[in-house]
């Protein structure tokens, strides 16, 4: 039973970061109808910024300060997103999907090398926080406290987003825009502003995902490309454009990955991709998506 | 002789009874006008018969064969073709290509990967012939996207006609066309239909056009058939006068 509990915690752990990345991707798609192939690199960017802040700038600082600085990556990714949307993406909203995908693919390549240039080719780590946080004993095995913090942050982020999207005026406008951009625009919504806000929020989420992962794993250059495909699986299962879907999709993927690592490591990823394909076939709009 | 018969055809969209237990008939060798105000269910009826939509109930019989569950492809092979209310063309292909494609498809040649389309002179000659029939041959090489609204409407009809159907459904072939252009378009369509000995069911709003060109008129209202008769009968039909003519400009 306790053995099961540890697996469950690990599943929640990977679901927490996945939800943040995939939720951001899905939010951006829901509002702007753009699949951002560079999204994974915004996650990686968040990881690098936090790794640099905690591991270099604040090396040796006391743990509470490190916790306070943890969201640096989220803020960094949000700022980057706020610059990218109006400059690079905005010219493409009226163009065919192919071009939107290609521009974000170009952005993926560019961002990858920008990080390479700024932080070098080697992994950047900031494990102090993870080490300083200690561990609890679960079933006689030590379990890192920091992992529990990540799970908590994932949960809080989900609750916060739910509140944001369903209980605030901003959320009302956001949902209206995602359902019908033209009508929202006719009703006086500043669509350009809405887009930049939604994109920034989506990038913030990806950056937060990167930020919280970095004390337990180093930031590496490939992490964005890999994370993007995993979050694709999440949003395809949950439904492109749906935050609830991203949450459920992240939980499903988290559980399958954990089970896969334990019992079928060779085909763990293949199973995930096949699951995504199967969901698309049975319910093209995903488990929570609206048919469009 | 009936060419096409529907029995109790039904289609709902949520609470809207777009087509409500319709018994509709098209006879051989006739030009039939299907009239009714906007939202009466005319387009939906054509969508059901042509296979774009699946009915919620009822049967469709074409030449004594039940086609209710046949694919679009199967219905075209059986001899039912249609044009569209909102023009539906291959915009980047030339006019000639648009028509030729229908001919290739009719002849089962679109399954050929290793033959040059341009080498099949018979097809291109037929395509030119059809464009000429509709008075469109001058712009044969112009992409469909670059045509006027009237030309596009006609081309849409020509593409359907190129399938050599036995029954041709035309959904508002003259809408969006100036009044002056309407008569030549209808002249062309009806003369082609009569000469080939096929049938056409034409959805039309302009009552002058309807009375001038059709052999028979079917009037729809709120998803049901309101009246069915010759132009002379429909002219004096009270239900039509109240429900339809009162609301149109005729």
């Amino acid at each position, binding site marked *: 039973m306790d053995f099961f509990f540890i697996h469950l915690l690990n599943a929640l752990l990977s679901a927490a970061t996945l939800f943040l990345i995939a939720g951001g991707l899905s939010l951006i798609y829901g509002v702007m109808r753009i*699949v951002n192939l560079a999204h994974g690199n915004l996650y990686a960017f968040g990881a690098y910024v936090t790794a640099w802040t905690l591991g270099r700038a604040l090396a040796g600082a006391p743990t509470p300060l490190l916790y306070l600085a943890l969201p640096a990556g989220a803020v960094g990714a949000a700022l980057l997103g706020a610059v990218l949307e109006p400059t690079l993406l905005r010219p493409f909203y009226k163009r065919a*999907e*192919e071009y939107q*995908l*290609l*521009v974000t*693919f*170009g*952005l993926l*390549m*560019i961002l*990858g*090398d920008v990080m*390479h*240039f700024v932080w070098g080719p080697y992994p950047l780590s900031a494990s102090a926080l993870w080490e300083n946080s200690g561990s609890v004993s679960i079933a006689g095995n030590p379990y890192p406290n920091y992992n529990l913090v990540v799970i908590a942050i994932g949960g809080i982020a989900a609750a916060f987003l739910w509140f944001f999207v369903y209980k605030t005026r901003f959320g009302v406008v956001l949902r209206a825009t995602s359902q019908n951009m033209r009508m929202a625009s006719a009703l006086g919504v500043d669509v350009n502003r809405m887009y930049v806000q939604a994109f920034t929020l989506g990038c913030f989420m990806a950056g937060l995902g990167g930020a919280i992962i970095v004390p337990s794993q180093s930031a590496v250059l490939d992490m964005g*490309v890999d994370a993007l*495909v995993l979050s*694709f699986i999440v949003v*395809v299962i949950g439904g492109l454009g749906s935050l609830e879907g991203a949450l459920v999709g992240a939980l499903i993927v988290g559980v399958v990955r954990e089970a896969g690592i334990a019992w079928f490591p060779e085909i*763990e*990823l293949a199973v995930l*991709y096949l699951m995504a*394909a199967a969901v*698309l*076939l049975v319910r*093209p709009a995903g488990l929570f998506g609206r048919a469009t | 002789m009936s060419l096409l018969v529907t029995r109790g055809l039904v289609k709902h969209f949520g609470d809207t009874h777009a087509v409500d237990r319709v018994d509709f008939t098209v006879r051989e060798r006739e030009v039939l006008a299907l009239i009714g105000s906007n939202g009466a269910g005319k387009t939906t009826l054509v969508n059901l018969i*042509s296979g774009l939509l699946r009915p919620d109930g009822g049967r469709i019989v074409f030449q004594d064969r039940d086609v209710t569950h046949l694919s679009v*492809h199967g219905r*075209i092979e059986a001899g039912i073709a*249609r044009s569209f209310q909102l023009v*539906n063309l*291959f*915009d*980047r*292909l030339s006019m000639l*290509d648009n028509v*030729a*494609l229908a001919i*290739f*498809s009719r002849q089962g*040649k*679109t*399954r*050929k*990967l*290793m*033959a*040059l*389309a*341009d080498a*099949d*002179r018979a097809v*291109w*000659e037929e395509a*030119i012939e059809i464009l000429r029939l509709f008075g469109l*041959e001058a712009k*044969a*090489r112009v992409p469909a996207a670059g045509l006027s609204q009237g030309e596009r409407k006609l081309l849409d009809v020509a*593409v359907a006609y190129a*399938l050599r159907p036995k029954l041709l459904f035309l959904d508002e072939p003259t809408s969006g066309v100036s009044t002056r252009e309407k008569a030549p378009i209808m002249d062309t369509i009806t003369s082609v239909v009569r000469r080939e000995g096929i049938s056409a069911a034409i959805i039309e709003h302009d009552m002058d056009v309807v009375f001038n060109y059709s052999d028979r008129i079917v009037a729809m209202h709120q998803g049901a058939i309101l009246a069915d008769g010759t132009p002379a009968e429909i002219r004096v039909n009270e239900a039509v006068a109240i429900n339809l003519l009162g609301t149109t400009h005729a």
Partner: protein
Amino acid sequence: MSTLAVAVESRSPVRRLVWAMPVAAALLVYPWVASQYQAMLLAYGLVMAIAALGFNLLLGYTGLLSFGHSAFFGVGAYTVALMVKYLNVGSMELFLVGAVVGSAVVAGIFGFVCVRYTRIFFGILTLALSQVLWSLAFKFFWVTGGTDGLRVPTPMLVGFSGGKTDKIEFLAHAYYYYVLVIFFACVASMWVIVSSPFGKALQAIRDNETRAEFVGIQVRRYRWVAFLVSGVFTGVAGALWVPLNGLITPENLHWTFSGKIVFMTVLGGFSAFAGPIIGAVLYNYLEAYAVGNTVYWQFVLGTVLVVLVLSLPTGVVGTADRLIARWGGRS
């Protein structure tokens, strides 16, 4: 009959061959005038051109954007590598047969699933399925060599082995011509396919799926055949690529490699037949140049891509066509 003459004769193949002949001649003499390195580089470009040509049957002619063509390229390449490893085969012709069969099977299955969707869903589905193969190649290292990949020796060409010739010499000459012949064959057959009634039907599907259905074209079935043909062309490219590169790794199965194929095609222009060919060759030079000159070559390529899409959406060939047309119109 004059209208017909104008309409059909003006696009006769003879006019195009006028353009193609000098290019073909240049390709034939190239290894004699250029360095071995340059000849090999061009061979890489021609191989990628075959892949992009196949890819563009879907994008340019059928209107489907695949983000999973790495799957077919990789299957073609791994088929060769596995034939070497397990069957001890060395004949390039057998490799090509194997790659055609392998990629046809995979494309047949993937296509069956994918052609139910269009637009972004099609893209994501192809991506997800190609990633299945990537993860298998990555994890089943005892079969595929994992990230180390599999090595492939120089093959026998029509029964002749390179003998004692130097490997580079072999690739820059004999193998270059082998690639060139297959390239010509692929270009010619693709040209026939897109000019066939079937090719017209695909373009009709691209322009208007509903109307295509209503002229009697069974849209899904045609898309599936297009998918299959497209996959096989890309698979052949994969098979030709391995001996040139000497090594195949899961990288060529990864979705980012699919992205490169898309990139090449858009670079050349997906609305023109020659677009993917020119795009692939250009991309190949661009990448070789960027990789040779900076570690930040991805930055260079990414910037080119963004600028390209912003300023030349019809690609190099599309833009050249327009310029020529405008120039011709004025004079």
